[in-house]
């Protein structure tokens, strides 16, 4: 492959020699028009680079400067009016060791995300299995995806209304079933977190369902049937045939949700703002407080960098998953050799 290699459109996302060979095999899904470079009308690299430039410049503008700013700020104590920023020997970072709210923030964020994931994946997959090939599939899916369309901040407000101890219907409902005392969901430091998890589960379980449904559609029917003839029950059938097919997708979904939990705190800010008693003070909420309520920009930048670092690592894992060869083959509907 020379520098001037052109994507033949066979593989996704980029072309490796192996992919070309794979694709050229008769098992391939589409016809491959692969020709030696010499036959191609010479593509001008400059043309392509020019096409990329506006986007790259824009993205660089909004990402490189903020990133440098973050690093600079994180190394300084940011002065008050008229005061210069002072280099502080990494104090913004070393203080993490004694910053209970920072450590607690990470723990809570992981706990929160984990709870959301377990419930969303459990419910979402179950729902998808039930809906798959149901006569009402289209109709039901259309209904259950509604919460996803709602602005998180609006969802937060609606749930705040539902949880309210004086006039909230969910408060009444939970009390009537007998699982809630006079204290409302968001007023109890032991259960406020579950209140937030419920909102996330309400809003984002449909995503898992949709993804699982997409995965299930790809499970080869003949394999399922062969398995059934062998006497496998629906559960074993699901575990041994369907699950391997949908798990890479689920993994991606879980990672994406994790990263979204890092980015979106609209609903949490409205519902609890981190309280009561720090029970829901997850790292992004703490970061918001440090940066925009205390205006400790240096400290905030250091906290933000840890968040950014973890996000980037997760992002790299995610991209690796995108490129997972096994999954790619499935995407193209081919059987494994």
């Amino acid at each position, binding site marked *: 492959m020379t520098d001037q290699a052109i994507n033949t459109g066979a593989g996704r996302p980029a072309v490796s020699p192996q992919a070309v060979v794979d694709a050229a095999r008769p098992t391939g899904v589409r016809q491959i028009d692969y020709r030696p470079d010499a036959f191609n009308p010479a593509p001008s690299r400059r043309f392509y680079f020019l096409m990329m430039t506006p986007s790259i410049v824009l993205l660089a503008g909004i990402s490189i400067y903020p990133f440098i700013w973050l690093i600079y700020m994180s190394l300084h104590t940011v002065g008050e009016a008229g005061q210069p920023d002072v280099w502080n020997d990494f104090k913004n970072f070393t203080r993490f060791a004694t910053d209970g709210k920072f450590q607690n923030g990470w723990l809570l964020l992981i706990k929160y995300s984990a709870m959301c994931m377990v419930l969303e994946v459990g419910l979402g997959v179950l729902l998808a299995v039930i809906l798959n090939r149901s006569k009402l599939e289209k109709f039901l899916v259309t209904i259950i995806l509604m919460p996803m369309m709602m602005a998180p901040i609006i969802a937060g407000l609606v749930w705040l209304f539902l*949880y309210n101890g004086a*006039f909230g219907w969910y408060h009444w409902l939970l009390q009537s079933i007998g699982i809630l005392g006079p*204290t409302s969901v968001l*007023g*109890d430091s032991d259960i406020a977190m579950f209140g937030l998890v419920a909102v996330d589960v309400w809003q984002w379980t449909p995503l898992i369902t949709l993804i699982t449904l997409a995965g299930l559609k790809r499970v080869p029917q003949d394999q399922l049937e062969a398995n059934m003839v062998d006497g496998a029950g629906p559960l074993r059938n699901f575990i041994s045939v369907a699950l391997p097919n949908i798990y890479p997708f689920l993994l991606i979904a879980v990672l994406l949700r994790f990263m979204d939990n890092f980015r979106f705190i609209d609903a949490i800010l409205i519902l609890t*703002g981190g*309280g*009561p008693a720090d029970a829901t003070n997850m790292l992004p909420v703490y970061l918001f407080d440090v940066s925009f*309520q205390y205006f*400790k920009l240096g400290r905030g930048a250091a906290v933000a960098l840890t968040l950014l670092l973890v996000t980037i690592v997760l992002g790299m894992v995610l991209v690796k998953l995108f490129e997972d060869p096994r999954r790619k083959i499935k995407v193209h509907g081919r059987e494994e050799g």
Partner: protein
Amino acid sequence: MFYKPKNALYKTISRRKFLELGGSAAVALGAGSIAVGLNSVITRRPVYAASSDDAKWKQYSGSKLVFMSENTPPSFAIKEKLKVFYDLTGIEVEILTDQLPTVQQKVGIDLRSGKSDFHLNYVQDKPIGSPFADYYADYTPYLTDDTLPQDPEGYGKDVWFENFLDACGHYYSSERLVALPYDAAVACTFYRQDLFEKYSKDFEKDHGYRMEFTADTTWKNLTEFTAFFKKLKESGTDVPYGYAQHHGSFAWTTQLDIQRMMFANGRWQDFSVDDKIGSKTPGPTNWGDKQSVLIMQKYKEHADVCHPDNLANGTIELNSVYQAGKVASQVQYHEFAASIEDEKTSAAAGGKTAYAPCPKGEASWIVNGGQAVNGTNCGIGGIGINGNASDDLKRAAYIFAIWSVSKDNQLEVLKGLGGTPTRKSVLAVPEVAAARKRPTTMPNALTFDAVYDLGIKDPHFVLGPKIPNTNEYHQIMATEAQKLVAGKQSAEECCNSIKAQLDDMHDV
């Protein structure tokens, strides 16, 4: 056209539909794109000391200013009156209103960036004033500038209610004045007189004194009232809970609740500094001393008999609980009286509610030798001028500032949407004096006896630490107190934890 695999990543069926969609989107956008910026305009006509008042008011005619404010009644009322201001001065003012946290955020970014998108700010004394005081313009030179219009009453300490000017205007120095008092929220007790009277006899049988709120009602009495209601409720009587505070969701008011109780008992303060001016280096905190631990124990005992949903309630949430008739008394800021007296939304309206000063300290709880007072605190919202603005912009902003805090405006806000005056002269208006008794047309005036005649005066008045780290301080206080109320730590642990965090914050 070309070979299309069975499992292709898209289907052609809906292609047309989506093309149409994209097309109509483009048309919709092309239909119009407007830009509404926050551009300020400044035009000036020179005036002289000898010029007419009218010329002084009109010297910046044609200018445009932006005022960033909290979404409270005075701001809405001022918004309604912008036409009057425009007719008077020819200056166009845009008022943006948001929730306090959003205001803090926007104003903070604007001030820190050295810009002046917002020429005028709502300077809520501690959340905005304390951290950003240095970014605001000093009023002092303008107050005596005879090329500017001036308020006939002047701006001395005497024209405002006691302590108001210090509370919102002076930070870390009494030389610089960075805000004029614009509205006020002073704590007082709202209670259901009907319920208190109904059960007073039963209470007296057990405790030997009447269940009523006076200026001499102590925190100990209050705890007993509250416990009485709780016992009554648990025995099956249809009564609400006795009392509630703002233990949750809004750190600042949680901190103010604790502070009232601490100050009432021996005038205890967080830091040994001049409370009214504040300090950038307050030194070690007094938290963790014997007095503080004792009061926090009492605070916890009291919280245990209060409304059980306290940790979910900030000011407004608690107020709606009270409006719904689910609590017999509450601490609340006097600006809320209007909403309590609103028959349309409140079960506590129609003469059921009475207003009393904050509870007094209990002599037997005071171990530091201090005085027992009716510890009362407040939030005084000032109007401040962005120090980053150009000199002409500042002068134009000054014209708006003094207009907005004028007596006539305050009176109209009080009559209309239910404001809270900051000028003494407003109370002297016969109409207002009459409104302090039922039946009233200005419900907020019902609180004036408790608030302006007692609470805000020394020695009852406590401002709370004015320190640049005030917002972090509020959060620390609220979190630790919530942990105490939730039973996650003891009073002593609570005080020590507060001390450790505050001292760490101030590097002492």
